[in-house]
């Protein structure tokens, strides 16, 4: 399970990360992991495990009333308790997030094309025709080439198309790390398969690091080799997915794998 020692500092280095409410209740405790450039890690956990909080804490997006402790070094910059001006250059350029529900992640009052154009204009300083071309390319990359889609509002397109648009926006600023937080949970099964394939292809092509968060063991196993299992705010096990599935060490992991296996078996052998 040991990885070759990286020659440079990891892209993301999380050390004893904790998240607490204002009242002092710990929602996440003592989380530590590293992610090198181009590396993939899956975060598996059920509701209440703290997995989504992790993605927010890593990008400094924790809501009011929540505070982080410990250390998160993103491209060498400390994120915990960092002021906004230090976090802004990180978001988009170093790390981007794709969220679960594209309907709430997209601005309902802005056309899709414009929403993709914004980060491109800001990060790559393009204008006019160059910008329009870049937007068209971005849409092509996520297979949303139909010109009508760029002119549409989020509610006018399907869930799968919205998620593709959200991915295009996340990738527009050319991040080094993509955080995908349950990106397919709200989608139909056939659409889910397409989106996962799209994500896999794009992450591979651009050599991005991927932090893939999900409650679905089967989905995570399709996207990453390495997995971190979380329960009630604590990391309980880590390892290559094959090992975690065949020889779970922690009782929670065993229960999780057992349930997933039972459900999977219902579908018969492949």
């Amino acid at each position, binding site marked *: 399970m040991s990885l070759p020692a990286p020659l440079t500092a990891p892209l993301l280095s999380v050390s004893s990360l904790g998240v607490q409410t204002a009242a002092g209740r710990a929602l996440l405790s003592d989380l530590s992991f590293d992610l090198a450039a181009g590396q993939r890690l899956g975060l598996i956990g059920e509701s209440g495990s703290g997995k989504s909080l992790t993605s927010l804490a890593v990008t400094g997006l924790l809501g009011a009333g929540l505070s982080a402790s410990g250390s998160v070094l993103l491209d060498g910059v400390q994120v915990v308790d960092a002021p906004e001006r230090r976090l802004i250059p990180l978001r988009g350029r170093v790390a981007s997030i794709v969220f679960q529900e594209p309907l709430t992640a997209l601005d309902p009052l802005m056309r899709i094309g414009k929403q993709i154009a914004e980060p491109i204009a800001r990060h790559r300083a393009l204008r006019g025709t160059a910008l329009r071309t870049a937007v068209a390319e971005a849409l092509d990359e996520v297979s949303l080439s139909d010109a009508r889609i760029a002119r549409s509002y989020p509610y006018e397109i399907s869930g799968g198309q919205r998620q593709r648009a959200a991915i295009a926006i996340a990738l527009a600023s050319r991040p080094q790390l993509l955080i995908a937080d349950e990106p397919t949970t709200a989608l139909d099964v056939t659409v889910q398969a397409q989106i996962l394939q799209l994500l896999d292809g794009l992450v591979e092509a651009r050599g991005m690091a991927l932090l893939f968060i999900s409650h679905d063991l*089967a989905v995570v196993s399709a996207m990453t080799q390495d997995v971190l299992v979380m329960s009630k705010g604590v990391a309980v096990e880590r390892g290559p997915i094959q090992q975690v599935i065949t020889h779970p060490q922690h009782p929670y992991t065993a229960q999780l794998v057992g349930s997933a296996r039972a459900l*999977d078996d219902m579908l018969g052998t492949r």
Partner: protein
Amino acid sequence: MILELRNVSYRYRKGALALTDVSLSVDDGQSVGLVGESGSGKSTMVKLMLALAKPTSGEVLFEGQPITPSTLRRFRASVQTVFQDPYSSLDPRQNIESIVAEPLRSLGLARGDEAREMVAASLTSVGLPADALDRYPHEFSGGQRQRIAIARATVCHPRLLLADEPVSALDVTTRIQVIDLLAELRESAGLAILMVSHDLSAIAALCDTTVVLNAGRIVESGPTAEILISPREDYTRRLVESVPRLPAL
């Protein structure tokens, strides 16, 4: 025959067709799974099967007859439902006893002490402690709430349980428990089940027959095992192949 849809079509007020010529039936002891993605028309089908809406053409038959105001009460007592969202299907301002007793009360089946006893028995049958009676929904987890919903749906001993995405909102570990519970009730109470779901594993676990819905039409139906292993239609095959699988052992 408990419930039957005969050549049912449903058209929205704006003119779009939600369902076209759909026929389906459920008899005592049967377990039917209805698979469909969003936009397939399955929510409309559920509304029609629960007599919450009328089809634009075709008939919805209960025990072979159309549902009339005089047969409605018997229909409701015979066909009960478990809904998808355990956080929305229980009235937050009522206690568990009141929630589970509602069918008994509204259908005039039992009241007072007799109702209370039936509620307690129902809660026990779903694996919840008797002291849950005086508590409120917010004190329970998603899986427990779904059990309460199942207790409510089975308290008047219906013939058919219509489960609308009963496990989709639950965590994987809880999903298995609720599926096991439903299977157990099928056995012990001889309950017929009609389960609507986009989760093929749940359907495979509980339903002997599967019906596949796409764009308002039934595209394929048959024994679940066959549908999963050798689907005839392209759409069904795509559906089955899209389900993410664990790596083989």
